[in-house]
Structure formats: C-alpha cells, structure tokens
C-alpha cells in the first residue's frame, strides 16, 4: 500500500484564523473546527489537497 503524504494544519494560531473554509470544502467532511482547535481525520483524508487551496492564509501544508 503506498504510504500517504502527510497533511499538516497549522492550528496553533500562528497561521490559522479558524475561518472554516477548509471544513466547508473538504469533500470527505473530515476536518473539524472547534472554536480554536482544528483537527482532521487522518484515516478518512485522501490528501486531495483541496483544503490546501481553499485556505486563504496558507495554514495547511501537504508533503
């Protein structure tokens, strides 16, 4: 099985402004925003990178 790329959401407040854009666009509904905490479901995420583009401030990185 090919190993998945890693997805990192910078959610400590350095970059993320908790705007929810990524949550709304994720086709798999696997990002969760709880006030100032953002998490995603590692197992469900397909690394499609859609959220990376949708984030207005570049807080999501994939590599």
């Amino acid at each position, binding site marked *: 099985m090919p190993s998945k790329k890693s997805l990192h959401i910078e959610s400590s407040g350095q970059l993320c402004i*908790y*705007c929810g854009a990524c949550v*709304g666009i994720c086709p798999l509904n696997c990002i969760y925003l709880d006030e100032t905490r953002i998490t995603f479901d590692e197992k469900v995420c397909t690394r499609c990178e859609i959220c990376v583009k949708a984030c207005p401030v570049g807080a999501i990185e994939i590599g």
Partner: protein
Amino acid sequence: MGSDLKTDVLVIGAGPAGSMTAKWAAKHGASVLMIEKRQEIGSPVRCGEGMSKDWLPDVGIKPGRWVNVEVEGARIFSPNETVFEINEKHAGNEVGYVVERDEFDKQLAIDAANAGVEVRLKTAATGILKDDGKVVGAKVKQFGTTFDVHAKVTVGADGFESQVGRWAGIPTNIALKDMDSCLQYRMTNVDCDVRFCDFYLGKVAPGGYVWIFPKAEGLANVGIGVQVSQIRSMAEPRDYLDRWIAHHPAYSKGKKIDMVGGGVSISPPLKQTVMDGFMVVGDAARMIDPLTGGGIANGCIAGKICGTVAAQAAQRGDSSKEALLEYDRGWRARLEEKLYRNWLAKEKLCSLSDETFDKVVDALKDVKLQKLNVHNILKAVRDKYPEVTKEFEAFL
C-alpha cells in the same frame, strides 16, 4: 451522560438563519431549542458586513445599533478602474447597510430568546439521531457532556461549513468553482467613502472581487474573495489582497486592526433541502447569492419560512418529508429564480477577460440606467461595444 432532552424543534446553529428559524417557530407556538457550538453568538465575525435592507421589515427585523453606516449605493471598478455607480436599490443584496455583524447576530438571537426559544451556547451537534431513516434529533455535546436531543423537527443552520446536512444525508458538497476563499482586514486610517460600498473586479481577484465596505470615516472592511478553482498555490487570497492594498495608496497607508476569513459558496442552491424530520437553511443550504456573495438576507427570508413550517409540522404531528416540502417550495418561490440567474451570471463573469470587463463597465457608466436589469445592461453594452455582446448571447 447528561440527561436527554425533548423539544418540538431543534435548531443547530445560531447565525441569522438559525435565529430566524427559531424565532418564527416559537412565534407559531412550538417549543424550540437552538444550540450554538461557540461561546459567543456572532463571534468571530466571518463576513464582509454588507447587507441590503428592503427585506428587513418583512421578516420582522428592526434596524438597531448594529447599523454602522447606511450607504447610498455601490461603485463597481473595472480592471482599469473605470467606475460605474449604482444606487442602493439596484445594487444587489450586499449593499444598503454596513453592519456590526456580531451585534446583528446577537440581536437576532435576543429576538429569538424573547420569543420563547431556549438557547444553549458551547453546545455542538456531534451526530444526527435517526429512526428508520427519519431524523429524530441530534446527539449533542455541551461542556464535555454528551446527550441526545429528541426533536419532532431538526433544522441544520450551521453555516458554510455545515456538517449536519451531510450527516443527515443531504448532499451539500460544493465544487471548487462554486466556492470563494475569502479574507478581510478591518483597516483604520484609510481614505474610504462612506457613501459607497466599492467592488473591484477582474484579475485583482479571479472569480471574485475586492470589496471596500466603509464602517465609519477612515475605517473600512477591505476584503477579497477568490474562486478556489483559480487558486494555484497556498495563501493566494492573502497575496492577492496584500497586492491590491499595496497598489492603492488610499489603503496602503492604513493600519490593519482585525483579520477574518471564511468560505463563501457561489453555487446554485441545493436541490434538496428537506427530508423526513429534517430541514437545512441559510448558508448551509447554499442560499448565498452566487453573484454578490451575500447570504444574510436570503438566510433570514428562508429562516422565517423554515420556522413557520417547522412549528406547523410539530403541531400537526407530521414532520414527514412531504409535510416539510412546504418549506422547500416556499423558499424556492421567493429566492430560487434569482439564485439561478445570478449563478449563471457569475459563471459568465468568471470567464471574462479584463479587457471585456473594462468595456462592459465603460458602456454602463455612460448610461443613466432607469432600471438595472439584465436587459438594460445588455442594451447599453450592445450600443457601445457590439463585439462584446456576443459573449452574453446566452442571457438574451
């Protein structure tokens, strides 16, 4: 486990569409619980804070201290910054008032509470309760305690990042071309004109626009929306906005005092907004105007219908899909035609070159438009730039 609750109507999300739904359901005699996952209604703000105003009396909202300024109209700037002015009545649903959005949301929640709605903060839905395919409430979490809320009717009003609709089984996914990624600074010490909301079109904001919504003399919301399908690399909306500001001395001298972001759908509305025991309303139902990005008016108008139908369904003891379809038909009758028309117009506008934008705006500025409608716009364009008209044949 906390103890489970029972209510006629459960509204998930306390934004404008949620509060409106809750208020009108309570006014029609239902017991209503409205839950909000955040600790403060209306905060953080995620929006440009512009709205039209002609619809307010109809849904029972009185202007209050949430109004910052009342503008005369909108100014549309083409890429070469030819300006076209439109008075407020014809300017679409983001122009009229510039508001303090958190105050506005709070006022609507107060109206709902005063109508008898029970409001619970820091209470998030974590799942939907179903019985034989019918939605019968939601699993919620408050202060770390999980419990069930049983409701005759459950309403998803959880905004752009809606998950409730998807959990219930209504497809709310949107295509990349049907979403704008938005960023906005509140800036002080800028030279804004409090008489106008300004919109800058073209390559400065592919598939969207740069907006200036004045909050007071010298204070404005300066924001951008960029179509996600046109974003090539990380943080592009911010880069576009910073570039635009750098090129406009009236704003580059300003100071940023606040920053908000968000996603805005610019899609046609959902094909399905009800199922057995469940309705979805507002941004969550993709009711945002795809041309202007304005969602408050549509969310409130639909919310009133949604709340009314929810109360009737609860009282009659029939919250089947068939019964709730009255809401679906009701909001479509009010909003759908315009949403589709504006979605088509948006699709067209997103494909125009900067040169074409310049010509269209230039043609418009010469004409004293009696009535700003598609027909008159096309006529103005045809008279001055016949070669451009063929781009718009589909609308004739």
